């Protein structure tokens, strides 16, 4: 579904990505793991278009989308659950979700998407008129995921959804992610430092210093001592 | 590569500015040049534009009608060189020096305003150049001991003297007698000297000052001050400072329905734009002016007073001015002042047959003359003492001179009509 080839990008004079290759197959969860500063977030942002591309290409469903602006990519069905949530804190939960269905294509399905999200996260229905900035971290993460679902995506990229959350909530989040794959058939690209992401994944990439160092099934990665010690610290 | 080009270009600019071709020193006097770091942009642009056009008109007259300046037994043309100091003090000094040293001008003019006049004074003094002050009305300039500064504009302290004398005369202290005067001026050195002068004069004539307040420059709403003023119930309001605040004061007095027997504003009320801006609210509003279109100074009048006359008649002057600005603009007193300063220089130079600054400066000290601008006479310090102001009143959308009686073009409407 998503194919990243020799992607290079960075901020101004500072290059971060040095040509990683990566593929996400439809209907799977693909995990991208690696230490802090490996360039994982930059990769996601480059795919979505908020960081300028310096070289290489991005293909979505076989189509070259490398230089398409972000909002056009959202139209095609790519979205991101950004690191650090990036909610509209002064807006209510409901308003946040509605904003997810901003594009014309998503607006058509607005009500059914809302229904789905409220069934996934009943708490969001209870609190739909609360300002999102006043909620707990876990709830905010739910709103972020809900907002991303509202765009009616085919591919969701998630940037460290477990960050800063209590272990119990992390479990819940991962369960939800798996549910999204199984029940709605979403394709997911999951970026994590948390090794728990290994278990949820169908396929794993290991990234370090802007390049892919290893890839394989979760078992293969787990069984490779070299990879575990060098990049995962487990 | 592109970057280098830009840098080189700017460097060339720099070199051109510093070593800009110097005019060859002329051993024989071929023309007389006056130099002027004018205020053509920035906050004094309005007055600066008028002054430049005024000087151009006067120079035009000297060359085309007067036939040039008579020095050394022949007539040489008068030349005028001006730069734009942007109403900024640091530019005044460098541009003035450039005029003196590179352009070799013979006489210098100060920019508009007391502050900028002061900024250039030390340079003019250093080079011993006559420095014609046409727009710095502060009395204090002439208490500093400058030797080369010569004023044409009248000093601020006398702006409202005529107005007060007029009230005293035409509204004798019978019932109801106007004794209560309110002063509301802009807070600046110039306006304050006008206010203090007015206060002194008013007390001398037996009026009561019931209100005396200033407002800061750049004010956008005078309502609180005016409601205070309204409470003091004055018979006469005098004040102002600049163009905008004068319009504002008038407009907001009308808004608040503050009716008085007389309203007199410095600077603003004497300009054509005032009537256009205020419409019927301008009716009856007065203002002291150094000069006004319609004054009746003439060659015959000069002869009667036994004074030398120089320069164009008023109508000729207006024609020359319009030619200089290239549009149908009437000159106001900022232009007339600057023109009169040129005429004073011409007379002084011709009298002593020299362009030596010291000799000319002495001649200016002795000089007494009349032009379309009126009388001209300075005291020992260079301060203008000969020029009398006129009072202008808006009557049916036109400016009429109503005081002094000898110069008036219409009778004063007093008390002024109420605001509708």
């Amino acid at each position, binding site marked *: 579904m998503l194919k990243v080839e020799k992607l290079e990008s960075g901020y101004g004079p500072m290059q971060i990505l040095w040509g990683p290759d990566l593929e996400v197959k439809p209907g799977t969860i693909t995990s991208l793991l690696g230490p802090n500063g490996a360039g994982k977030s930059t990769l996601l942002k480059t795919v*979505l278009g908020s960081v300028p591309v310096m070289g290489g290409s991005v293909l979505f469903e076989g189509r070259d989308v490398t230089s398409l602006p972000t909002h056009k990519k*959202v139209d095609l069905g790519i979205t991101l659950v950004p690191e650090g949530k990036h909610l*509209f804190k002064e807006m209510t939960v409901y308003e946040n979700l*509605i904003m997810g269905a901003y594009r014309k294509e998503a607006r058509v399905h607005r009500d059914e998407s809302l229904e789905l999200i409220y069934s996934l996260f009943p708490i969001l229905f209870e609190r739909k008129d609360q300002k999102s900035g006043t909620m707990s971290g876990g709830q905010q993460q739910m709103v972020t995921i809900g907002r991303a679902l509202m*765009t009616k995506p085919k591919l969701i990229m998630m940037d460290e959804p477990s960050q800063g959350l209590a272990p119990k909530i992390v479990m819940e989040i991962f369960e939800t992610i798996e549910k999204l794959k199984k029940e709605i058939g979403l394709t997911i690209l999951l970026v994590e430092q948390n090794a728990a992401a290994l278990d949820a994944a169908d396929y794993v990439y290991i990234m370090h210093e802007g390049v892919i160092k290893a890839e394989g099934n979760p078992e293969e990665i787990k069984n490779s001592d070299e990879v575990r010690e060098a990049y995962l610290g487990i | 590569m592109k970057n280098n080009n830009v840098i080189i270009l700017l460097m060339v600019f720099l070199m051109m500015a510093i070593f800009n071709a110097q005019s060859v020193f002329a051993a024989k006097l071929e023309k007389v040049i006056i130099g002027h770091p004018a205020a053509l942009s920035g906050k004094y642009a309005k007055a600066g534009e008028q002054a430049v056009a005024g000087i151009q008109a006067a120079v035009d007259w000297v060359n085309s009608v007067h036939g040039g300046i008579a020095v050394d037994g022949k007539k040489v043309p008068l030349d005028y060189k001006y730069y734009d100091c942007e109403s900024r003090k640091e530019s005044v000094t460098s541009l003035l020096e450039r005029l003196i040293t590179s352009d070799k001008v013979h006489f210098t003019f100060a920019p508009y305003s007391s502050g900028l006049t002061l900024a250039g004074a030390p340079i003019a003094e250093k080079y011993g150049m006559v420095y014609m002050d046409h727009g710095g009305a502060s009395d204090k300039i002439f208490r500093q001991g400058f030797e080369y500064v010569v004023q044409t504009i009248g000093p601020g302290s006398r702006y409202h003297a005529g107005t007060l004398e007029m009230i005293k005369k035409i509204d004798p202290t019978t019932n109801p007698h106007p004794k209560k005067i309110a002063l509301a001026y802009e*807070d600046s050195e110039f306006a304050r000297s006008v206010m203090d002068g007015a206060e002194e004069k008013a007390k001398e004539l037996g009026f009561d000052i019931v209100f005396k307040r200033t407002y*800061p420059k750049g004010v956008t709403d005078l309502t609180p*001050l005016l409601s205070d003023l309204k409470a003091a119930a004055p018979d006469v309001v005098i004040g102002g400072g600049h163009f905008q605040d004068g319009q504002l004061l008038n407009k907001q007095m009308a808004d608040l329905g503050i009716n008085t027997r007389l309203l007199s504003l410095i600077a603003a009320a004497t300009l054509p734009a005032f009537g256009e*801006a205020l419409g019927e609210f301008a009716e009856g509003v007065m203002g002291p002016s150094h000069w006004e279109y319609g004054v009746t100074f003439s060659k015959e009048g000069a002869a009667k007073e036994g004074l030398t006359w120089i320069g164009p008649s008023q109508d000729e002057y207006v024609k020359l001015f319009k030619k200089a600005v290239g549009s149908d603009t009437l000159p106001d007193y900022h232009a007339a002042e600057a023109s009169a300063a040129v005429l004073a220089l011409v007379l002084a130079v011709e009298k002593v047959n020299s362009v030596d600054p010291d000799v000319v400066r002495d001649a200016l000290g002795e000089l007494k003359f009349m032009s379309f601008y009126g009388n001209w006479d300075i005291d020992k310090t260079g301060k203008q003492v000969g020029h009398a102001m006129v009072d202008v009143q808006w009557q049916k959308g036109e400016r009429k001179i109503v005081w002094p009686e000898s110069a008036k073009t219409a009778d004063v409407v007093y008390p002024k009509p109420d605001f509708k």
Partner: protein
Amino acid sequence: MIFEQLSGNLLQGVILGGVYGMATMGLSLIFGVLKVVNVGHGAFIMVGAYVALILFQTLGIAPPLAVPVALILGMALGMLFYYTAIKKLLKGPELASLLATFSIGVILEEVCKQLFTSEARGYHWGLDKLDLGFTVLPYSKLIAFGGSILVGLLLYLWFHKTRAGMAMRSVVEDDEGAGVCGINVDWEYALSFSIGIGLTVVSGVLLTMFIPVGINPYMGGSYTLKAFVIAVLGGLASPYGAFFGGLVFGLIENGSYTLFAQIPGLEPFAMTRFFSFVMLLVILLIRPTGLLRTK
């Protein structure tokens, strides 16, 4: 007596403050969305004043009807300056955008000087006035006040009830979040700069209904400074906060005058200004999010 004056001044202050508030909304909107402080703010107010003046004098169009013209002109100017200068400076240092907006202001001033000369001009609409006894209110002021409230209200509705307005609000809240929702952030920047400038030019028209005189190319400076104080009062990034900031400012400016006037030896008008800037500092320190926000 003093009470009567104070109440008159306060009422005038509210009316004036409404117009001030309106004149600040554009500044706050632009800061809220782009994080750019528009130092050339006052110059756009000046442009609006000329729009009202010229339309009235040459075509006899009543000032309220000049509002749509001002809005269109302002939005066009906003787009022009956004795509020629601002867009390229958004990622640069703060300094660059400050200097750019300042230069834009200078360009406008100098162009207007060439077009209209630096003469202070005005127009005379000639409406009647309302005498309340303790103070007098011309109808043109009341119309300006009503217009300001209307614009403020429309802006509020637009922000809260329309899709486009909510999208812009979401960019104010979090531009990255807005991006993943498929909102074209760059276009929202352009649009909000354009609307911000449009509002500012419109406020210039309304200001002339309040004060139809003294219109000149350099009149904007004092409005820029006032707008800064008002914007901070209302919370720098909140356009309708700015409206209430304006009301508060008008009240304080006119109210404190009466009080300062009781102290001998002071120039109350200048002290009023001094007081408003002190207030600016205090608010920045204690409550940088503005008076309204609860956080």
